[in-house]
């Protein structure tokens, strides 16, 4: 690996990310999968780093899932997105930041389509007006939340309580970064670092003391693929793709996986359980899995947020070995306590995959 070569490519694919004043749109599904990620994104940006981030309770799905499942036409998705832009305009913002990679891809795709076909934009403006009497300005900047965290990575590092370093050995943790397909594969110049060697997550990992590993199937999709997962008959296909990634990363003994997409960490986390049940194979050390975290969770951990407040107990793969490696203190007895300190249910244990 020639690191300078990557740096050269990263230099070619830098995008302008405004420092402040963002209109934030959440993901449809992340709050279920990783309940504290979005909350801590806002918390870190607003409270710790003092940025102005606005969110509206009126925003809806961007229709990306329906669009990628071929259940609605693109024009419908465009109108839904136009409404989000209208909300942003009404709130007085120009910079749109999305929590979801598919939303990000959707917004970028729609803006690029409008750029190529301005008559389509006019048509959508009409649709929006007819539907809900709203008007909008197009955002000046569209960023993914990970772009913003990438930009703020230095500030986070300054405030970090923990380094992504193996406490016992002093070695940097070996981190697999997985970028959502819709982040930059469609429009390489819209992602930090381009499509082939994106540095949005590797930049964070390295800034916080970790070491990114480059394994052959790094570019491969997590396996979610919308229709592949949502149709049960195709689910084996989804699983097989994830399996391919794990087989490829296995020899590198990664300590963790970080992702910037709603679906990826979910599948990279849950499929480890399914694979262990199907053919008894686990990919972490000592029968554990490889923890798959969101970048917000990782930022939270680095900044010293309590793991259980970050919602790490809802991961299938136990995060305790990782916490131990870094030296992050945690109280095992609080793992399954809810916000009100009452016991939420304790999950059953898998047959093979070791959990705490």
């Amino acid at each position, binding site marked *: 690996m*020639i690191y300078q*070569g990557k740096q050269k*490519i990263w230099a070619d694919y830098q995008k302008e990310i405004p420092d402040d004043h963002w209109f934030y749109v959440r993901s449809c599904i992340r709050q279920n999968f990783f309940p504290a990620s979005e909350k801590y994104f806002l918390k870190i940006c607003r409270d710790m780093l003092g940025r102005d981030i606005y969110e509206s309770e009126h925003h809806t799905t961007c229709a990306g899932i329906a669009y990628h499942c071929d259940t609605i036409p693109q024009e419908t998705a465009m109108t839904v997105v136009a409404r989000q832009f209208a909300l942003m305009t009404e709130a007085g913002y120009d910079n749109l930041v999305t929590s979801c990679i598919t939303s990000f891809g959707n917004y970028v795709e729609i803006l690029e389509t409008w750029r190529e076909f301005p008559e389509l934009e006019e048509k959508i403006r009409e649709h929006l007006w007819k539907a809900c009497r709203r008007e909008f300005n197009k955002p000046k900047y569209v960023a993914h939340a990970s772009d913003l965290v990438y930009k703020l990575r230095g500030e986070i590092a300054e405030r970090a309580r923990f380094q992504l370093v193996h406490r016992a050995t002093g070695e940097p943790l070996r981190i697999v970064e997985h970028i959502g397909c819709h982040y930059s594969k469609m429009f390489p110049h819209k992602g930090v670092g381009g499509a*082939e*060697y994106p540095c949005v997550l590797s930049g964070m990992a390295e800034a916080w003391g970790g070491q990114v590993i480059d394994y052959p199937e790094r570019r491969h999709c997590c396996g979610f693929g919308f229709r592949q997962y949502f149709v049960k008959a195709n689910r084996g296909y989804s699983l097989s793709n994830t399996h391919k990634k794990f087989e*490829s990363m296995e020899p*590198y003994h990664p300590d963790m996986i970080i992702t910037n997409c709603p679906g990826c960490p979910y599948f990279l986390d849950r499929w480890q359980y399914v694979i262990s049940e199907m053919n008894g194979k686990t990919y972490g050390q000592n029968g554990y899995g490889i923890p798959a975290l969101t970048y917000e969770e990782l930022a939270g951990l680095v900044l010293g947020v309590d793991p259980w407040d970050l919602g790490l107990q809802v991961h299938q793969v136990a995060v305790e070995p990782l916490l131990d490696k870094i030296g992050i203190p945690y109280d095992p007895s609080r793992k399954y306590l809810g916000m009100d300190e009452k016991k939420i249910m304790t999950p059953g244990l898998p047959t093979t995959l070791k959990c705490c």
Partner: protein
Amino acid sequence: MVNRTPVIAVIGAGIAGLEAARQLKDLGYKPVLIEKAPVVGGHVAEWNRLFPDLSPAADLVQSLSKGAGSVKTYTDTEIASMGRLKDGYSLILGNGETLLCDAVLFATGFHLFDASKKEEYGYGIYDRVITNRDLEQWFNNRHDPRVANPKAVGFVHCVGSRDVKAGNTQCSKVCCITAIKQAIEIKEEFPEAEVYCFYMDLRLFGKKYEDFYIKAQRDYGIHFIRGRVSEVGEAIDGRVVVKAEDTLNGKPIKVTLDLLVLMAGIVCNPDAQHYAREIGVAVDEDGFLRSRDNVSSIVESSRPGVFYAGACTGAKTIPETLAEARSAALTIHQYFNKRK
């Protein structure tokens, strides 16, 4: 009008420029060779052996530069600007000299495609990914540690050729046969190595090319896989994992290689475009200089007194380039005869 000996500026002292200059000199003209690089010979000077007879490239360059020996030659000299005069052209050279000439011959050649632009192949990122030029360098000096006793070697044809995404839709013409040549040379160096050529089409049009291909298959057991490499990753041991579709088999294919050679294609020389614009010579959509006619007058531009030789108008083989250089010299000769 021409009573003094006509002066012809030959831009580029690659094989086209050298050969044309020699012919012009022999025809009684005064050619002046202007070369940006410190040495003459262009790309061929960087090559080791030439297809299909594996003759040494150095011999060719040496004999061509010997032929053009008495021609006034500026090496290491850029052209700062070019301008049109009433009956000729003026060239302001980088060294401050001004050259007034009666005709200009573009022998500006081509650029080798920058393989790092095909990011998915990881040139400049992965240690074991090199280009055809790097391999020729290795054949020349054996210094490159990346070519260390490989057990498996891959060649990717059409890197930056026939590729809309790379901005070049044209075929580079010589990569197929070069890949076969280099594959054979690798097999000769490392007989135990498995060698794979990933191709989209094999375009082996020239004399002896097909024989060379049969030889590669039958005598060297080189594997030809019809399918373009889609991506390259790095394995834990630093070798590269290559993915492609084996289109004849209709299945994806994957192989781990010790060395991957990218057959960087022939793309236009942006300098030539720049000069062309300065004196009002047309450039084709593919970036190469536009000939007056692609069938009958390939060496002529639409402007009087401006001529072409070699790869400045598109990918060429060496024999084609040399033939064009001679043809250009004769065409220039006719041009001056008509003006008398």
